C-alpha cells in the first residue's frame, strides 16, 4: 500500500511540474521534483527496504511514457541509479532518520 502511495505522489509531482508549475514559468528553475522525491525516499528509508528501488524503476518507466522515450530508457537509468545509491549509501553514508 505504501509503495502505491509513493508512486502516486511521484506521478502527481511529475504531471504537476509539467502542467501546473510550467504555467508560472518557474518550472525551468526547479529541479525535477520526482527525482528529488525518489532520492529522498531512497535516503530516508531503512537499508533493508527496497521501496526506493521499485519507486525509482516505476518512476523511470512513467517518465518514459510521459516523455515519449523508448520504454525502459529512464526506467533502467533510475533503477541502476537507485541500486547504486543503495549500495554506496549502505557502505559509506550514515544517514538513518527512520529506523525500523
Amino acid at each position: 500500500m505504501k509503495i502505491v502511495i509513493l508512486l502516486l505522489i511521484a506521478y502527481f509531482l511529475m504531471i504537476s511540474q509539467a502542467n501546473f508549475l510550467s504555467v508560472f514559468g518557474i518550472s525551468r528553475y526547479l529541479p525535477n521534483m520526482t527525482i528529488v522525491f525518489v532520492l529522498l525516499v531512497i535516503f530516508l528509508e531503512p537499508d533493508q527496504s527496497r521501496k526506493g528501488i521499485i519507486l525509482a524503476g516505476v518512476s523511470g518507466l512513467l517518465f518514459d511514457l510521459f516523455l515519449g522515450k523508448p520504454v525502459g530508457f529512464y526506467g533502467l537509468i533510475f533503477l541502476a541509479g537507485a541500486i547504486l545509491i543503495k549500495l554506496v549509501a549502505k557502505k559509506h553514508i550514515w544517514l538513518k532518520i527512520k529506523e525500523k
Partner: protein
Amino acid sequence: MTNYWLRPRNKTKTFALAAILIVLFLIIVNLRDTRPYLQNIFFTASTPIEKILLKTGQKLKSFTDRIIEINSASRQNKDLQSENQILKARIARLKSLETENESLRMALSLGLEKEFQFIMAEIVSQNPSTGTIIINRGATDGVTEGQIIISPQKALIGKIDQVFRDFSRVILISNKNMSFDASVINAANEKSVKGVIKGQGNLNLIIDLISQEETIAPGNLVTTTSFSGQFPKGLLIGEIAKINFSDVQPFQTAQVKPLFDLAVLGTVFIIIGQ
C-alpha cells in the same frame, strides 16, 4: 519433486533472472510497437488530472497576473501623475515667462529703458486694503527703501517701504499714508494743473488742493511732478474719475482712478536709477 518457486535460491541468481526478464520485457515492448499503445493508456489516465492541474494553474496564473497588472498600473499611474505635475509646472513656468516677456516688450515699446534703470520683479502677495504688495526682489537684488515701483505701462504703483533679504514690501500710492505732488493734464488746453494726490485705501485716490479757478475734467490724466522729490516727473498716476466741486471749499478735489490694476498685474519694475 520440489516446486521451483519454493526452493531456496541464491540471491544473485534471482537478481540475474529478474534483470533478464525486465530487459526481455522492455525489448518486446519496444520492438512490438506497443509503446504508442502504452503511452495512449498513460495519457488517457493522466489527461483528466493534467487538465485539472493545467486549468487550475492557468486560473491561478491569471489571478496573480491581474494582481501584478494592478500593481503595475498603479505604479504607472503614479509615474504619469508625477510626469503630469512636472508638465503642469513647466506650463506654469512658460506662462510666467510669456507674461514677463510681454511686460518687457511693453516696457521696451514705451522706452522705459532709455529713461530709467530698472529691475523686474513679480508680485508675490498683495493686500489692497492695507495698500501694500510684496515683490520677489530684496536686498540681495540691490533693492533699497524708497525706490519707485512702476507698471510696464509706466504707471506709478508705489515705492519700496521695507526691504527683506529676498523680498520687499511696496507701499501703494493708494495707501492712506501716501501724499505727493501731481499734475492734471487738461486734454483740452494741454495746461497742467497742480494738486496733491492722497491715498484713500482700497486702491482709491483723490487729488486735492486744486485751485477753484483751474478747470479739470473726467478722463484727464494725472502724472507725477518732481516738486516734492519723491517721484520722477512724468509718471502716470491715473485719470480723473469724478470731480468734487464745491463753492464753499477753497480747493476742488477729484477722485482719481489708478492706471494699474492689481487683479491683472503680475510684473512690475523697480526703478534703481535714471
